[in-house]
């Protein structure tokens, strides 16, 4: 193993080292590499590149941002690179991966990098909901960055056509089911040309959709330590049953799996009157929708409730002390209220701190674009994302069973019981 790696390393670095030598001699400047995922449409790379350039102008620290695919792909790439002895100095990864990443022993906590009293104060400035997936074992492991909640985008023209009030979006499951049923449009042959609502149930996304549904019956899916899940309890089954009923009973959403990637196009093409998506998609939808659309909090069983999502900045152990400090400096730089506001306005992600919403530009923006305020006002009823040890394995156990229930091969109760059995087997070694 070692020999192979050495051969590869020598082969790979020799020409590069020769080329890079003059640059190394020129200055001892810090260069950081940083991986980030994209989960929404729009010109995200240009925005990230702009921030890195600006940061370099102000501090002299060079950061090369690397777009690394969706969340799952970025995680794979970052961990693979780090295990091979190279890799990024810091990265945006799913906030919910905290327990798993910590278990791999590749993270360095913010406490270890070193934060003074002002650092602690800085962390207190974030929305508490966004810090929910950041703290474990008495330490802080990540900084909120591209954070979101699940919200509904809805086609106001379709609402009008179906005889629904576009300014009065459903607040409960019963109202949603009734509205979604009415929104379905069929052609002469009975073929559906417009679905009432669509939610993602493909791998990597089903567990997030489900996290929102579980919170809508006020059910918590795991303990804070990330060692227990509560899938087979009546409320969790109720949540999956509602999802299943939307297709089986109300015929308002297609049977089988709907993919995350097709939700935005489906909505923009008028193929679905409602979609459940991330707030991070707001700018994309605003730019492309050819019809008036609304943004609303997800209805719950009794009232609106949702789940937070998105990525945090994680810092890796393999970086040197100056590199870690420079990475943390970037994290602080990018989360200043002005920049958080800018990021939020240009993408639709929720600005990570209340202070960002107090900046003049943001006040002006939310006055002009009230939809931008919906998600933020929705934060108090948002819960943290499903986050456990062996996170991806637990996600798979849950996702497989959700898909089985949605395609009708298992009842919701059986699916959740199976998911619980699988998850218990996976998490057993972590219970002491």
């Amino acid at each position, binding site marked *: *193993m070692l*020999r*192979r790696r050495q*051969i590869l390393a020598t082969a790979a670095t020799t020409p590069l080292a020769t080329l890079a030598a003059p640059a190394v001699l020129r200055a001892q400047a810090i260069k950081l590499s940083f991986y980030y995922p994209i989960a929404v449409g729009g010109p995200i790379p240009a925005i990230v590149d702009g921030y890195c350039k600006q940061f370099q102008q102000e501090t002299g620290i060079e950061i090369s941002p690397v777009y690394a695919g969706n969340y*799952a792909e970025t*995680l*794979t790439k970052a*961990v*693979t690179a780090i295990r091979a002895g190279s890799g990024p100095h810091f990265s945006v990864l799913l906030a919910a991966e905290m327990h798993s990443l910590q*278990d*791999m*022993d590749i993270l360095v906590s913010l406490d270890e990098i070193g934060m003074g009293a002002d650092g602690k104060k800085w962390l207190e400035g974030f929305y508490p909901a966004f810090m929910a997936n950041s703290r474990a074992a008495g330490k802080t492991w990540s900084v909120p960055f591209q954070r979101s909640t699940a919200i509904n985008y809805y086609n106001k023209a379709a609402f009008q056509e179906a005889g629904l009030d576009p300014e009065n979006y459903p607040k409960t499951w019963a109202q949603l089911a009734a509205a979604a049923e009415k929104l379905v449009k069929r052609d002469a*042959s*009975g*073929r*559906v*040309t417009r679905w009432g609502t669509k939610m993602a*149930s*493909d*791998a*990597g996304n089903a567990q997030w959709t489900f996290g929102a549904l579980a919170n809508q019956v006020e059910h918590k899916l795991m303990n804070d330590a990330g060692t227990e899940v509560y899938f087979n309890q009546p409320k969790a089954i109720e949540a999956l049953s509602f999802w299943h009923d939307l297709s089986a009973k109300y015929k308002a959403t*297609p*049977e*089988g*799996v*709907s*993919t995350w990637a*097709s939700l935005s196009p489906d909505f923009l*093409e008028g*193929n679905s009157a409602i979609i459940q998506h991330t707030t991070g998609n707001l700018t994309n939808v605003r730019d492309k929708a050819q019809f008036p659309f609304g943004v609303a909090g997800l209805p719950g069983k009794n009232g609106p409730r949702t789940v937070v999502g998105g990525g945090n900045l994680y810092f890796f152990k393999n970086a040197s002390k100056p590199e870690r400090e420079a990475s943390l400096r970037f994290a602080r730089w990018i989360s200043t209220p002005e920049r958080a506001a800018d990021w939020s306005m240009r993408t639709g992600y929720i600005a990570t701190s209340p202070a960002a919403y107090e900046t003049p530009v943001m006040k002006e923006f939310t006055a002009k674009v009230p939809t931008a305020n919906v998600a933020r006002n929705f934060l108090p009823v948002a819960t943290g994302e499903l986050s456990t040890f*062996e996170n*991806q*394995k637990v996600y*798979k156990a849950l*996702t*497989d*069973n959700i*898909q*089985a229930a*949605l*395609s009708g*091969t298992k009842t919701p109760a059986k699916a959740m019981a199976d998911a619980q059995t699988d998850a218990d087997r996976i998490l057993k070694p972590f219970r002491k």
Partner: protein
Amino acid sequence: MALNRATIQGWLLVLPAFVLLVAFTHWPALTTLVDSFYSTPRGARAAVFVGLDNYIALLDDPVFLQALINNAIYAAATIPISIVLALAMALLVNGALPGRPFLRMAYFLPTMLPMIAVANIWLFFFTPDYGLFDQVLSLFGAGRHNWLGDADTALGAMIAVAVWKEAGFFMIFYLAALQTMPADLREAAALEGSSRFNFFRRVTLPLLMPTTLFVLVNAVINGFRLVDHVVVMTRGGPDNATTLLLYYIYETGFRFWDTATAAALTVVLLTILAATAAIQFGFLAKRVHYR
């Protein structure tokens, strides 16, 4: 013992290939075998020797068993369909036909495209409601198909993509073999009054047998190796309906970081491939040559 010049020269000649094979094939295969007897190292916990535990755990793993069954179906469908299709296409474009170069190119085009691009094209074909297939089928009054999102059709969809991609590649080998076939055979058969079908069955097909063996070996390997489109199109879903063995290895190794289980899975895959290769070369190879 004095090494003579020729021996040294011989070894030097094979050295480059030998080094590459050992470094990238044999050594990794051996370390994989060794790793499969150890537990997965995690953070502070180092790997410990666990004997056959990883293999025993596989027998209890429903996803592994499903992946095996899926892969068996996938291989059993893609191998014969793509070979027969390849032969049919080769026979077609071997004859005098208007627009022959264009047809040949059209058949070969899928092979030139990267699998990821192919998968993205087919992703559109399979899109429910407004994808190509649903649009065409709706002209005949058919309803909506969630090709990739329905456990009943997802694996079939994967097979269709693989066949589309493979057939053109295999056609090239058949075409090359047909081109080298001496014309006097056909003339002799014509003089004898042999029918075209008889000529194909008695002359063409037997002469193509060595090519068929070569194509078969490749098809079998691809039956286990070609999973790029699964990554792009379904990620093994819905509910593992399209999880193939190699995709499951990737998922276990690089998503779950369960390297020990991934190593055990890899050994299973290697064993399957080695066994089929042994059958093909040891048993079939003796029977393919026309005498």
